[in-house]
């Protein structure tokens, strides 16, 4: 049982705020103050123009001293806005800040009512509820937790790379975990980037090698986070390092083993080239892969499948780096903050079968074309179609899997721009005629509209209309052997048939297919589409609802490289702020299990959305980790024997508040 530490008489100070005209124009603040004066326990009751102003706060402090007040109530705006202000004022007046209670008569009363009389009565009811509540308030201690200075970054695309370097350069230790054998993400696959057309590799690879060589960065590629325990400032992370079957300490990336592999030609579709080429069982994703370490794919390797390979690779490696017995390894680390930069996934073009992807060999996705035009791609940058021809006409279809209620409703934001980029690159590589089929051109970025203008000058054709179908059904001789794009040209109001040699589908950006698992692992939320949810769309775009976990890049929503980098910088700054503060205050509205009252019924154990509740097996009772508890109250409601209490929301407080609220309400009987 809990004893009230404070047995002295309750002396309440009540202050009602005019908020200029915001409140006072509807609520008769004088009448409310007069009324509250008559309530038991109230010593001071007055009104003031702006309670949140310095004089307003000083008024409270002065009264605490002069009238020995030990409870303070302010009736004004939403606690979200000024609860902190007033708690601090009360604390400065020498009182524990949790003896304060706020009544919202602005958002809840004056802004939503027009009947002044009723609004005044409602304000009185709310004030009376607070007066009855504060009798049960207790002094509470604000807890502080230390922030571990190390940071975990998940995902080594451009966002993860940028965040890692920013933090590492400021002296923080960073663990960068990437699940592919190399960092770089999608950007590493591109030839050039819009709108400046600078070469992606030229700007990305230096950053990749900085990551590799930075003394403050521990880079773990081919690895995944499997477990997340703890709370802000004190996360315990378990990471699985998948076996590469190559000793990373020994391999220098000479690739002799690849050359000497018993396979003279690759047989396995090359993931990095989106299947446009084949790789050997021992491989490196691309020449500048970081780290420069090869790996063996056990699914493809003869030694793994039959144990009867000549193992020419082992012979070839004079550093003895190949180790067929390597096992997966688990690493445990402690960090204080986490940045998730897990990126996106491109829309599966097969979901719109009428565009013929997978059916007609010369229909490509944009990502495939990124590789085709890339000097280090499967064709060395020469644009050769799957049937060996060079295209003379190309059609680029925008919004594939975007802005479409049958697939994804959202605009993927980057595809207009990368389609323009690809149009330019295709023309540069082939001198083909290029048609862009678009709904709207979304070129809202710095120098983006100018890039679009430039493309118009390059004689790229733009047809405004959603494409109905891609087929090989020729009705005219000029269409023989071509792919025919049928679309309504909404500018001239006719349906057009454009025969082309190559179709490029500008596939949209989607959440990673495992985003829900990752979300659960890290205990954050996703928006309905499945992108990670930010704490506030405008004012906290890289924070999540879980303290100490930040998001950056395309995992939060479709965005291009400049925006991803900006977010990565912001996430790094947020992490730095926490780290440099050293510790954070925890709101004491946490729940706790009164040990003597707990029957060990286990009801609460699985329902906490923040995994704050565990069972002490020796005592057979439940236990709440207060640092993890967010004060959501779920367990308090669920505990069938009332063994869980929540600071600031104890039953006595809530029921006295309800009673106070309803006291003057006539009971209607059935």
């Amino acid at each position: 049982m809990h004893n009230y530490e404070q047995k002295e008489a309750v002396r309440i100070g009540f202050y009602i705020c005019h908020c200029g005209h915001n409140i006072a124009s509807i609520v008769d603040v004088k009448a409310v103050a007069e009324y509250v004066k008559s309530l038991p326990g109230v010593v001071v009751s007055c009104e003031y123009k702006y309670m949140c102003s310095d004089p307003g706060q000083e008024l409270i402090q002065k009264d605490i001293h002069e009238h020995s007040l030990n409870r303070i109530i302010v009736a004004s705006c939403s606690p979200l806005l000024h609860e902190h202000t007033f708690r601090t004022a009360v604390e400065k007046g020498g009182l524990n800040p949790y003896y304060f209670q706020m009544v919202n008569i602005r958002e809840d009363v004056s802004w939503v009512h027009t009947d002044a009389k009723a609004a005044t009565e409602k304000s009185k009811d709310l004030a009376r509820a607070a007066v009855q509540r504060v009798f049960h308030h207790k002094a509470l201690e604000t807890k502080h937790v230390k922030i571990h200075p190390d940071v975990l970054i998940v995902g080594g695309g451009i966002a993860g790379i940028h965040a890692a370097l920013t933090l590492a350069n400021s002296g923080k230790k960073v663990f960068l975990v990437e699940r592919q054998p190399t960092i770089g993400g999608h950007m590493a696959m591109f030839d050039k980037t819009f709108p400046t057309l600078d070469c992606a590799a030229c700007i990305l690879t230096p950053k990749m090698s900085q990551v590799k060589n930075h003394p403050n960065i521990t880079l773990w590629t081919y690895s995944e986070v499997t477990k997340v325990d703890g709370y802000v400032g004190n996360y315990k992370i378990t990471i699985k390092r998948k076996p590469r079957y190559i000793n990373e300490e020994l391999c220098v990336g000479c690739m002799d083993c690849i050359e000497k592999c018993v396979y003279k030609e690759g047989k396995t579709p090359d993931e990095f080239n989106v299947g446009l080429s084949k790789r050997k069982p021992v491989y490196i994703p691309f020449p500048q892969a970081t780290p420069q370490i090869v790996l063996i794919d056990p699914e493809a390797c003869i030694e793994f499948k039959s144990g009867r390979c000549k193992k020419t690779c082992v012979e070839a490696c004079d550093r003895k780096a190949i180790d067929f017995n390597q096992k997966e390894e688990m690493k445990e680390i402690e960090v204080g903050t986490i940045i998730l930069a897990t990126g996106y996934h491109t829309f599966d073009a097969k979901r719109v079968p009428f565009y013929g992807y997978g059916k007609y060999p010369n229909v490509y996705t944009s990502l495939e074309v990124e590789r085709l035009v890339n000097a280090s791609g499967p064709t060395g940058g020469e644009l050769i179609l799957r049937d060996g021809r060079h295209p003379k006409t190309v059609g680029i279809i925008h919004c594939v899997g975007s802005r479409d209620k049958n697939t994804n409703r959202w605009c993927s934001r980057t595809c207009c721009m990368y389609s323009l980029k690809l149009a330019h690159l295709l023309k540069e590589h082939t001198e083909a005629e290029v048609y862009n089929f678009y709904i709207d051109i979304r070129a809202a970025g710095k120098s983006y509209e100018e890039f679009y203008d430039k493309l118009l000058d390059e004689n790229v054709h733009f047809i405004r209309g959603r494409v109905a179908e891609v087929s090989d059904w020729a009705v005219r001789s000029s269409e023989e052997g071509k792919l025919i794009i049928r679309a309504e040209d909404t500018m001239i109001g006719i349906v057009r048939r454009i025969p082309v040699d190559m179709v490029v589908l500008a596939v949209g950006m989607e959440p990673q297919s495992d985003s829900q698992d990752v979300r659960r692992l890290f205990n954050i939320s996703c928006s309905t589409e499945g992108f990670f949810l930010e704490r506030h769309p405008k004012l906290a775009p890289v924070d999540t609802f879980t303290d100490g976990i930040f998001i950056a890049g395309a995992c939060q929503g479709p965005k291009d490289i400049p925006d991803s980098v900006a977010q990565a910088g912001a996430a790094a700054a947020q992490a730095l702020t926490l780290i440099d503060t050293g510790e954070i205050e925890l709101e004491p509205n946490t729940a706790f299990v009164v040990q003597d009252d707990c029957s060990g019924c286990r009801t609460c154990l699985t329902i906490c959305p923040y995994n704050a509740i565990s069972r002490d097996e020796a005592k057979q009772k439940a236990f709440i980790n207060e640092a993890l508890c967010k004060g959501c109250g779920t367990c308090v409601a669920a505990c069938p024997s009332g063994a869980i209490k929540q600071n600031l929301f104890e039953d006595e407080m809530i029921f006295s508040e309800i009673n106070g609220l309803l006291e003057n309400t006539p009971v209607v009987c059935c």
Partner: protein
Amino acid sequence: MPEKPKVTFYWCASCGGCEESVVDLAENILDVVAAVDIVMWPVAMDFKKKDVEAMEDKSILVSMINGAIRTSEQEEMAKLMRRKSQLVIAYGSCAHLGGIPGLANQFQREEILQYIFEESPSTVNPQKTRPERKVMTNGNAVTLPNFFNVVRALDQVIDVDYYLPGCPPTPKLLKQALDALLSGNLPEKGTVLAPDIALCDECPKKDTKPSDLKFTEFKRPHLVQIDSATCLLAQGIVCMGPATRGGCEGVCISGNMPCTGCFGPTSRVKDQGAKILSALASQVEAKDEKGIDATLATIPDPVGTFYRYGLPISLLRRKNF
């Protein structure tokens, strides 16, 4: 020899089981009889109302009143016992919580009378005769007490000092209560004389209760072969144990029957039914409305299941008499 403390046992709307439980003290009853002077016990001894009326106020040490208050006569007697006694103990679930009779609060007085005197399958009453409150026989007026619209727990009618929970209370708890009374070693007024922790704490099946029950359906005890080694909730049978005060030593559970909640909630809980509901509902496997509805539909009588003893004192209670 100093006068022995006076004790009464009285019954209101109850089944008589509580009276039995006093006899269940077995040989201990002899000690009780030796130590006290029973001055009123309608079920066992022939004292009349006027005998009690004749006593001085507060001359009785303790009155143990079982049963809920359904009629004006019960109310009158409860008030009389209160006046004459230093202490009143609400004895058993009906006095404590309203009990099984309290389930009648789902219906209006008129609905009840109509059913009993006209519609029930065993009623043959073509004239629709109803009992009269007052009848003259041989020049004497015979009166019946008033049948209230609402069933009340004892403390909704008179001031109560202690509660002895259970349907009926166990001999062990009665013995402890009597010892405390006679030794004057009494807890704070208003205390329920049983442990203030839920039944799971002392349940012999406790170790087998899983953390995540994942209910897909609720089963009724008479329709399944109950595994005596396993927690009943784990077998899909509604057990009120997690929301019910312990102290019964799990008599029902040991007999392979689920706890039905007769000890009422712990002191910290205002509404036992709401509490078990929120506990069980949070463990229903289905997460969509249809699936949830289908699971909950397997409980045919939710009020009778979750508020079997406590409807009159619950937040759902009815106020008009």
